[in-house]
């Protein structure tokens, strides 16, 4: 009983933490799209004509995904967590590519510049995104299980 309660607590803690972080990150970028477009351009990964388009739409996507994690619906959790997995895979790919090309950019992910030496910024951002990825996978599996996909009908009934 206690273990079930602590599981629920951990589940909601991760959910609120991730949802809140992505809403915060999205709001910060939405507030200052010029700085975010500069950050995207500094990675030299997108053609310049797509930079502003991405800088304008990605923050809204992050906010919607963050909100979906906070809505207490199983399908919302599952889709939101799936979106977070895709986003974090994308971010890790971009950061790794930049790191491999020797680019010393600041991802500007939370609207702040990390007070780190330039060569540490990208590895630290990759580690952070990996942590988010693991948390997102945890939430997605949790949402997936609750959707009853990996349970027999009798088990679902028992759960209810």
């Amino acid at each position: 009983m206690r273990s079930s309660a602590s599981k629920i607590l951990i589940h909601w803690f991760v959910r609120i933490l991730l949802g809140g972080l992505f809403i915060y990150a999205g709001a910060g970028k939405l507030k200052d799209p010029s700085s975010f477009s500069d950050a995207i351009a500094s990675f030299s990964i997108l053609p310049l004509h797509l930079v502003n388009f991405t800088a304008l739409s990605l923050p809204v996507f992050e906010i919607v995904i963050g909100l979906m994690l906070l809505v207490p619906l199983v399908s919302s959790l599952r889709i939101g967590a799936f979106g977070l997995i895709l986003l974090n895979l994308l971010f890790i790919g971009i950061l790794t590519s930049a790191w491999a090309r020797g680019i010393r950019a600041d991802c500007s992910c939370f609207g702040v510049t990390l007070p780190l030496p330039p060569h540490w910024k990208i590895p630290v951002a990759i580690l952070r995104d990996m942590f988010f990825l693991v948390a997102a996978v945890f939430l997605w599996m949790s949402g997936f299980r609750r959707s009853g996909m990996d349970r027999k009908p009798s088990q679902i009934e028992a759960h209810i």
Partner: protein
Amino acid sequence: MKMIVKDFGILALIAAFACGVGLVVDRFRDEPIGLAYRTPAQRLSVPVGQNQSADLSAGPEENVEISMVIEIIDLDRLGQLMEEKRVVIFDVRPNIFFRMGHIPGAHSLQEKEFETDLNSAKLLIDKALEDHKQIIIYCSGTHCSDAGKVAKKLSDLGYGNLMVFESGWEAWQEAGLEEEQESL
């Protein structure tokens, strides 16, 4: 598998919605960024000071001829001005990066601590303008917006003779030029 494909489809719809909302929100901004990307220096290429009054009481003396257009310069032009000793240089990156290395002779004027740092920088700027020198501002590189922000703030305070060294510290390091460091 079916559910994953379905979720993927819903996410695609959310992405399309995000694109639409992002573009609409931008249209209602005071300064929309539009779809064409411009570097921070290009965004400054509009003569910022031209539409302002020529009240320089906050800064330089009135009888000194001062350009109110923020000029964007490259490494060659910076080198030329430094040789002629006609510059005062400000590094607007956070102090930790300034201490790790900066252009020789540059002073720190952090964008994040602008109001505080300006108190000590003000004397230098006033003296530089009296001596008809240029104020050069730089940050980490071409896509860093801090140099432009500081140039705009100084211009709004009535200071002129402002130049932004667009390619910044990155270009200086890539050129293998001499660096100055301070103890951390």
